[in-house]
């Protein structure tokens, strides 16, 4: 499990907050349950979870808000609520900026 934790830190690029636990894979102080073949992918997703409210910058964790990831086609969206300021909205991870396709 130690190796798995190291992989987690490496894969996520975790900085000072990066840490794992003895029984779970994890990243950025956050944990996952169990082991799956797609764990490298899970760790990347975990690392992308918003950590702060986009409006008031309050920390988002189970005590102070909620951020639930869902997919819309290729887009990964984090539906987020901040307890501190009440902001509710979707945060979208952008991998590539694509504009309208030109018509031939």
């Amino acid at each position, binding site marked *: 499990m130690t190796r798995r934790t190291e992989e987690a830190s490496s894969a996520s690029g975790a900085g000072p907050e990066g840490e794992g636990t003895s029984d779970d894979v994890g990243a950025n102080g*956050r*944990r996952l349950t169990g082991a*799956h073949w797609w764990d490298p992918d899970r760790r990347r997703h975990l690392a992308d979870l918003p950590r702060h409210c986009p409006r008031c910058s309050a920390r988002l964790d*189970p005590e102070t808000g909620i951020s*639930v990831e869902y997919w819309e086609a290729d887009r990964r969206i984090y539906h987020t609520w901040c307890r501190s300021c009440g902001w509710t909205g979707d945060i979208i991870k952008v991998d590539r900026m694509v504009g309208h396709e030109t018509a031939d």
Partner: protein
Amino acid sequence: MLTKELNETLTSVGPGTPMGELMRRYWYPVAFTRELDEWPIKRVRLLGEDFAVWKRPDGGYGILQESCPHRAASLVYGVVESEGLRCGYHGWLFAPDGRCLEQPAEPETSSFRDKIRAQAGRAQELGGLVWAYIGPEPAPELPRFDVYVMNGVRDIGHSVLPCNWLQIMENSVDPHHVEWLHGRYFGFLARQRGFEMPSAFTKSHVKVGFDPFEWGIIKRRVLEGQTEEDDDWKVGHPLVFPYCMRVGGNGIDQMQIRVPIDDTHTWALFYSTHNPPGLDDYPEQMYPYDYEYQWIDERGTHIVDYIEGQDVMAWVTQGAVTDRTAEHIGKSDIGVTMLRRMFRENVAAVQEGRDPLGVIREPHERIDLPCERSKFGAGAEFAIQWIDRGSSRYSPHADDLKKLHIAAAQARGEKVPDGTGP
């Protein structure tokens, strides 16, 4: 996906947990009135704690911690007396509010009993069920939702399921499962096994919508061939926060009730009131019909040839507490996303000293919930399909229920389905 921490936060209901504190702000059914008329004390497990529920000689009900504060014997094996419940072991007597009234073996002058208090809640009857509240005082009102108080014939199927209650609630804001689990999958089974399936669930979803309202979330859908003017979108039906869903219309009104016994067990009830248009009087019932529906066979295989059995399969096979750190949810799951946020917001409300959604403090006669009238189609034919291919097929009175719908159809001057005449 969720983090492990958030999944644990949302699914743990024991005392002292954030969700446990939220869920202790509501009333729950814990017994049938019939049961406590047959024997006046019942052991109950609710939100991870054990209780003794009893019927008082004055007709009221009480609920106390199961374990006697003296030396932990079960109060379920106690004596019902006019003042309260007396432990069968050494005779300590507890009032319904938890005060210790007597300790027979202690010296007569002792004030020891004044130092003892059992954990007590409140209990009362509604709609043939005994309901309990184990949260902080002052207790809110017990909501008198329409299904529990309307006229009709009451029929309650119930079973204890080995899974967390939240995954059952998430199913209630997941309209798409209907066309697949109760449509395509049901059709596959029907073809393989040679039976006829209800035709109501095969239409594709064009659009789904979710609106928060004072009792939870209204779920709306536009099905193939419908518009936003149809009841399915215009009215919809509600998830009743935090542990019920209201469905039905046109002769069968139903509340689906999911009582969190603990983190890995849920008492799942289907409370139906049959009131087909065309009838003014219904047979007298001393108690609602109650029975256990079967969901697993002797080989451990899920029974999936009826609607609720299919739902149970989906709930239970997700695991005792489904691992949401390994899920992949999409746009079609936005109702689930919204429900999780609603729970998180209401946990915060409780922590900040406010009443959460759905707590009512004003006395009232009846709460009518929005529910589409035409969802299940009209007429006896559908009602009979619903009974034959739903959990009501396990009712010892299933035939009487079918006859009720046929009599109503005849009173309305409708054609009675072939082979179903009385």
